[in-house]
């Protein structure tokens, strides 16, 4: 429906006019054309009074009739009336015929116009379709281009991500090694320590490397062994080497660290 309205608004003016006239005509015919009083009758004296069959002529002789002077008026009133009626009838018929003619012409015109319009519309549609197609093709190409570009970007990002991951992994390993070494150099085993004992601790760190919490999550079974493990962490107190760590690496891995104390170097 919308398209129809759009189409209508795009139609050229002649077509619009023709339609309007048709509508008016239909309306007039529908309600009767009345020779109303306001309509002043024209008094005209034709040259010949004989009632002859009026030929169907296209040309309009009404205005010429109007120009006739008013000389022979007195005794031919009735005739005049009949003539007038006749005339009127003839005029009416002529008019009607003319009107018909006009109608036909107008209709033909209108049809022609309509066909033109149709043709133009079709052309327009075709043009639009082509444009659309072209646009879609362009769109398609653009998308493909985008896709290609995206894949390239993706591959690059993957490679970068892999590199970043490897870097992060190796960094984590070396920070872990530093932490291990600090703890080892501070781990003093009690006399009750024996091979095979294992204690698990959980420590919480902050980015400065400061240990903020130590808990034994799995006891070795020997209180002094557990305490010595805790003490090793307390002696370290701050893994200052961790300060240089990238913050996201710290957050991901080093906020909370598990330590497993499992000595392999005990003589007993």
């Amino acid at each position, binding site marked *: 429906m919308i398209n129809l309205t759009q189409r209508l608004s795009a139609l050229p003016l002649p077509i619009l006019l023709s339609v309007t006239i048709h509508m008016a005509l239909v309306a007039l015919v529908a309600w009767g054309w009345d020779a109303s009083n306001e309509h002043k009758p024209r008094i005209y004296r034709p040259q010949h009074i004989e009632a002859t069959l009026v030929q169907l002529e296209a040309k309009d002789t009404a205005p010429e009739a109007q120009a006739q002077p008013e000389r022979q008026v007195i005794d031919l009133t009735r005739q005049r009336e009949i003539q007038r009626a006749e005339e009127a009838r003839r005029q009416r018929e002529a008019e009607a015929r003319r009107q018909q003619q006009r109608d036909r012409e107008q209709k033909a015109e209108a049809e022609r116009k309509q066909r033109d319009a149709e043709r133009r519309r079709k052309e327009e549609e075709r043009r639009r379709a082509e444009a659309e197609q072209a646009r879609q093709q362009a769109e398609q190409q653009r998308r493909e281009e985008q896709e290609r570009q995206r894949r390239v970007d993706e591959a690059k990002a993957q490679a970068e991500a892999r590199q970043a*991951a490897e870097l992060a992994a190796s960094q984590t390993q070396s920070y872990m090694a530093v932490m291990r070494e600090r703890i080892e150099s501070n781990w003093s085993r009690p006399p009750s320590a024996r091979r095979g004992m294992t204690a698990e601790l959980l420590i919480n760190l902050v980015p400065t490397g400061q240990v903020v919490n130590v808990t034994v999550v799995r006891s070795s079974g020997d209180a002094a062994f557990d305490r010595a493990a805790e003490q090793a962490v307390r002696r370290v107190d701050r893994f200052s080497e961790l300060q240089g760590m990238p913050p996201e690496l710290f957050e991901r891995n080093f906020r909370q660290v598990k330590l497993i104390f499992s000595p392999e170097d005990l003589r007993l």
Partner: protein
Amino acid sequence: MRVFIALILCFFTHLASAQLTIEITRGMDNPTRIAVAPLGWNGSRPLPEDISEIVAANLERSGQFSPVPRSNMLSFPTQEADVHYRDWRVMGTEYLLVGNIEQRSGRYFVQYHLFDILGQRKLISAARVDGSPEQLRDIAHHISDRIYETITGIRGAFSTQILYIEGFPGANGTDERYRLMLADADGGRPRMLLESRQPLLSPTWSPDGRRIAYVSFETTRPAVFIQDLATGEREQLTNFTGLNGAPTFSPDGQKLAMVLSKDGNPEIYTLDLRTRDLTRVTNHYAIDTEPSWTADGEGVIFTSNRGGKPQIYKVTLATGRVERLTFDGDYNARGRVSRDGRTLVMVHQRGGVFHIAAQDLQNGDLRILTETNLDESPTIAPNGAMLLYATRFGGKGILAAVSLDAGTRYRLPSKQGNVREPAWSPFFE
């Protein structure tokens, strides 16, 4: 964008999916740094004994502690209010002993606290101990025991004693006078229990620490004697021909194992101290000597050369079944079993050198503990942490100590004569 993140996370999976875990497999066993602050004392004259110094020396000797030298202490707190954790922390101190001593009616009263500097809390709070003026050293040993036990979880043996033989050489260099001595575990306050011109050997403790037994040649022949420490009463238990030697008390204190050769050959016997019944335990033509009891009292360890050279065997008393315990080295003798029954210490010869060795009775592992030559008479502390033995140093006989993992060693201050044959007392309950 989401794909990027997903990829990154994938690479982190092996680290992020499991908690970051660090395995600690080695340690450095640096001794624990402890500061023993001098006890507060308001007396007009200095105390005859410096309790804090004795405590620090005890803890250092154990090998587990490294006391902060007094000269390094920034302050001498004597009460809790004077303790500022951060000051001690900065010095690297891990534990701090603080206390004071006062004298009332001739008796000394000590109150003390032990602070955990790293953990910022008190481990011992307002503990008290008191004693007579002669007991100042005992007070120091008691405090040492409590500190040791609180921190290591093992009972301290600082309040124990040792027996030993001291020989005084004559002009020609060989001993002509012999003394049986009793001293503190740190060698302090030595006192003479017996003196003789004839050899004395093999002193040993009863399990309750009230009696001792030893071998004396005072009758011109070796004989086993028993003596009550409190009363000084002594009794000759044996008078057999041949050897009478190597007495050791059973874990229940009722019997004495010994070596007698009265039946023609050195064999192991047990003597019931109440009934005086003598029971023969071994029966072999080889030398069987140096008996000592297993921890459960059901068997006797002894030295025998029935296999050709001296090795250590065990006989189960109920069945008489004998099994060999030592297989390493050319010569293993004088075996003693630890109270927990796990370790056998002995004189062990390897490559012509006599060491003290410890053998794990469960898995048979042998550890040489000493680097010195001519080591003998190993005796284990009642808490199993240290071992005393006799050796030579500077041309004299001295006593030395080593821990069972050989990580700690020290020498007792040398005495006038040649010191040997130590015997470590049990805990005095």
